[in-house]
């Protein structure tokens, strides 16, 4: 008991002289002020709402990107194909020092990029299309190494073609890949790809596959960078147009801009680790010697508790 008294000498606030203070009036005035400010700001500035990019809109706006992405999925060279947990086992994933948290969490949302994002939707669309059916049969019966070689070569050829235009690709041994990619583009253009990627669900609430596919392409990122939303543009704090974003994310965003985080392949895990430590520090500030004494030395309290009259 006496130890506790010695450790914290701050007296009970109820022992001090008091003066009238109308908490309810303060709350009502605060509430009215907040409602008026909110309505005024909403009326004057509105809020942003840029339409979602549909797979059909993507196919119409950037057909070459859809073809390149589908080919890269088949070649296994996209971000999602080589991601690791929680989608697949293609990579070890990020580590926080010795802690392989990403891997340990396991493959809980399985995504086999080539099959789930490209082949399976094409198979659903193949009925009544003998050319596509044949291309799919050729692909499926080929050994994995052959598949990788066809798709890899076509992918490289697309990169070299002017504007990535499939029509201008140099001749080569690409197997059924050009046919698969072309069919994929028309499937995307019609809008059918969208529902096929959500397993044809009547109530699709999970957009993991369409979003992974979109993120594997270049179009989504191009649109975001144009809006200054890129990771290395402090994008996490930003919003489309001139709207306020999440200014409270400044510290989290900051770490990504400086070494070692900006150059590390473990950047996400490292930044999350740093932020976890700092957040714990903020929460447990009352127990951290030195830091908890800071407010006394900073002296701002002298302004708050000055004799006002």
């Amino acid at each position: 008991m006496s130890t506790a008294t010695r450790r914290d000498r701050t007296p009970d606030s109820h022992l001090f002289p008091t003066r009238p203070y109308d908490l309810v009036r303060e709350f009502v005035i605060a509430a009215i002020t907040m409602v008026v400010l909110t309505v005024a700001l909403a009326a004057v500035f509105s809020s942003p709402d840029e339409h979602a990019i549909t797979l059909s809109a993507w196919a119409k706006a950037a057909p070459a990107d859809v073809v390149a992405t589908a080919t890269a999925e088949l070649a296994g060279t996209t971000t999602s194909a080589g991601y690791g947990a929680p989608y697949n086992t293609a990579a070890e994933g990020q580590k926080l020092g010795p802690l392989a948290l990403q891997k340990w969490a396991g493959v809980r949302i399985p995504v086999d990029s080539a099959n789930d994002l490209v082949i399976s939707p094409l198979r659903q669309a193949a009925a009544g299309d003998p050319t596509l059916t044949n291309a799919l049969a050729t692909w499926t019966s080929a050994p994995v190494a052959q598949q990788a070689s066809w798709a890899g070569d076509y992918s490289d050829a697309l990169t070299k073609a002017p504007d990535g235009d499939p029509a201008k690709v140099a001749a080569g041994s690409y197997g059924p890949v050009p046919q698969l990619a072309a069919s994929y583009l028309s499937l995307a253009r019609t809008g059918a790809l969208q529902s096929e990627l959500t397993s044809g669900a009547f109530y699709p609430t999970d957009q993991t596959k369409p979003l992974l596919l979109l993120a594997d392409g270049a179009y989504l990122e191009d649109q975001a960078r144009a809006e200054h939303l890129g990771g290395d543009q402090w994008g996490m704090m930003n919003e489309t147009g001139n709207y306020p974003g999440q200014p409270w994310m400044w510290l989290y965003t900051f770490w990504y801009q400086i070494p070692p985080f900006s150059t590390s392949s473990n950047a996400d895990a490292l930044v999350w680790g740093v932020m976890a430590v700092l957040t714990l520090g903020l929460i447990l500030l009352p127990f951290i010697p030195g830091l908890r004494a800071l407010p006394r030395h900073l002296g701002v309290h002298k302004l708050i508790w000055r004799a006002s009259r």
Partner: protein
Amino acid sequence: MSSADTGAVTGTETGSATGTDTGAPTGAATRSWTVRFRSWLTRAVPEGQWLPDRQPAYVRSWVYVFGVVTLAAFLVVLLSGLVLAVGGAAWWHVSRVGHFVNSTHLWSVQLFFFCMVIHLWGKFFMAAWRGKRALTWITGTVAFVGSIGTAFTGYLSQSNFDSQWISTQAKDGLNSIGVGAYFNVLNPGQMLLWHVMLLPLVVGILVVLHIVLVRRHGVVPPFDAEPPAPIHGVEAPDDGPAAAQASQVPGAQVPPLPAQQSAAAERSEVAR
């Protein structure tokens, strides 16, 4: 904790007084879960401290209003969110009225964070965790972090370009520490439920706990402030020491100013 102790006594008295309604003798009251729960509640925040009409005289700065202002902004966030929920997830994309309600939701969130951060700054510079108020600080900062998470899931629930970009970017951070395996930002159905149900519930409970703790412990006194010595011969009224002080010092003056002697400062430095 003299105030809480006083409350406990008051609680027990109230308990035995109302206990007669059930015809139970006073001795049996301790076995009644109802009476024990009631006296626990009364001990948590003694009557008269829930909504006091007086505050310590040192509560005299605009910085103090930002707690209540943040609470008001939080309620506007909840209210605009409730209205936004009426028309469903896609309403605001197709209706002018819905879009306006969405705008009020966005700006109320901006105001909420605006006020909450000023409140946080103010409480930091007061070292408002002193005097057994650590849990008040902890509930406040956890509510702040929880609010960031809630706002984040709001961005993911917009079902527009923002949601697409933010979710595909944020997945990498969450996956890198294994959280993404369970909290899938690419699943807007999951994110919407977290945004409108689970996280607001958590933040709401934290806010209630935070306010209960603030009311229970009162406003933190200035550094090194000493309460005036009690006046002998004056009996404290039933409703606690605050009221007792009020009756002793009717026209409360400026609070006792912090003792600026370095010795005193050093002493309490060690003490904290």
